[in-house]
């Protein structure tokens, strides 16, 4: 492969890639997928939602960023619950072999279960849509945090633990001065993966509960046959997910540097 670098390639190459996909999309909508709105039509129909992103015209008719904001709030709540449960759980799993043996199989079984499967159970348990959505987000997104924290705790070098023993550090000092800082890089990788999953789950959760948000909007526009908005929602979800991941990545890299 010829991998020559040139000035501005960091911008021009991704732009070229996007143009190619848009062209493919345009051709598809003209030929084999007549129901797929063309890029131009999508842009025209989406314009009011994009140009006035925070406007509220009605309960189900709001600017796209306003919807996104609702979704983010819900994700933030569910994600917080996931971290609050997942981190200590991961620590215990990492520190106690017996605990790990006891609960590892059940974690491996629950981990791959889709949000679409958890949500009805959440509705049965809580009777309301918001707690059910939070339940689903928390339950689906906590596993990477649990597993990475546990791996991080197990990976703490014996050297560090010897230092703790030789200095006779108290339990809390060992936790806060040694275990926690040593595990933090791993934990944060877990946090980042968890956030990605939480954002994935939100769409499914909103679609099923009908909560206002970017996923709820998507489902509603599908029912109203406004397919352009489906594409708008997909792109929004993608962009927001990308931004969240990048933000977490920046923090994560800082911690990795501290590790070395």
């Amino acid at each position, binding site marked *: 492969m010829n991998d020559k670098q040139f000035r501005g390639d960091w911008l021009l190459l991704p732009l070229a890639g996007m143009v190619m996909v848009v062209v493919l999309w345009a051709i598809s909508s003209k030929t084999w997928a007549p129901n797929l709105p063309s890029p131009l039509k999508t842009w025209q129909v989406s314009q009011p939602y994009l140009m006035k992103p925070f406007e509220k015209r009605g309960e189900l008719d709001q600017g796209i960023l306003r919807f996104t904001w609702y979704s983010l709030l819900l994700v933030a709540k569910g994600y917080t619950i996931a971290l609050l449960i997942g981190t200590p759980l991961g620590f215990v799993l990492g520190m106690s072999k017996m605990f790990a043996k006891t609960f590892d199989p059940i974690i491996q079984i629950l981990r791959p279960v889709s949000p679409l499967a958890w949500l009805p159970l959440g509705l049965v348990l809580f009777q309301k849509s918001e707690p059910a959505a939070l339940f689903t987000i928390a339950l689906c997104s906590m596993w990477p945090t649990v597993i990475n924290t546990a791996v991080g705790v197990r990976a703490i070098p014996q050297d560090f633990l010897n230092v703790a023993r030789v200095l006779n550090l108290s339990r809390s000092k060992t936790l806060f001065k040694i275990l926690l800082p040593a595990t933090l890089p791993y934990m944060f990788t877990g946090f980042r993966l968890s956030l990605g999953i939480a954002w994935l789950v939100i769409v499914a959760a909103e679609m099923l509960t009908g909560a206002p948000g970017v996923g709820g909007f998507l489902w509603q526009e599908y029912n109203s046959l406004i397919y352009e908005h489906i594409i708008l929602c997909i792109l929004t979800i993608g962009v927001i997910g990308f931004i969240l991941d990048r933000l977490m990545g920046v923090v994560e890299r800082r911690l990795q540097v501290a590790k*070395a």
Partner: protein
Amino acid sequence: MISSAVCQPALDQFMEEIQSGADTPHSKGPRMTHNDKYLEIWKLQKAYPTPNGSPAVIVEDFTLNVAEGEFVSVIGHSGCGKSTVLSMIAGLSQPTGGGIVLAGREIVDAGPDRGVVFQAPCLLPWMTALQNVTLGVEQVAPGKSRAEQREVAAHYLELVGLGDSLDVHPNQLSGGMRQRVGIARAFALSPKMLLLDEPFGMLDSLTRLELQQVLIDLWASDRKTALMITHDVDEALFLSDRIVMMTNGPAARVGEILEVTLPRPRDRQTVFEHPDYEQLRGRLMSFLEERANHPPLPAQPSGHEHHLPTMTAAAVNSSKSLRRSLSRSFLRLSGFSNRVT
């Protein structure tokens, strides 16, 4: 675990200490002190269970007394179990037989009364050099204010030549500088004794020579009882009052003990040029080359009257040429030796 044979002398020693004031600093002379059994290791054994039933014995019947203020090295081939002995004294590993008494107390667990310098510096990478040392000082001087604790830590870092690097994280320090922090951390604890587990084993030879000097200077200032594990003959001779030679494993034990009569304070050049040096080195080499594998003599804890066999011509020759090249390279490099690596 520990039998009354150990407890009794330990108790006597404890009483003796109470009467003589145990914690008075010892200014001069390693063997002028009242306490010849400051550290008492008695019939120490370490064995691991194996699947086929008979346990694998790493160390067997290891008996040694170390006087207060003495610097003792344990030398032996790698894998002979010398590090196992040290980790049992450090309390990081439990003996399966025998016992260890330090300053009248049996060692049952790890604690900051023993300053350990590990082979890898074992610094916590998220803390600065100063914080790494202060962490230990906090443990041994909880009554002091934070500022005082930091002052103690900074003082020891200055003594090892890191006064300018207090707020630097370990990943920005060279290997030699990291081990300096490790040494400062051990000394800053003001421990009852120092335990050094091949402290310079991971350093290049030039840095090793420098750090040996740092260690011996620091040690000379308060003559802390020290036990060092090493496989470097010259290092052992340069630093120690006595050198314990361990037989090869399995079931390693004390083979012979060598008194190092070289005068203190020591610097490398005078040590190298001392008339006894060659002979002492020859004894160590011939043990390591010939007798380490043979069934050992019964261990003699006193270690003062030994019949040391004369060394062979081969051992003399190899030690002579080695010493000459080492001393040459050192003198060539000694212009750099004051610089921190």
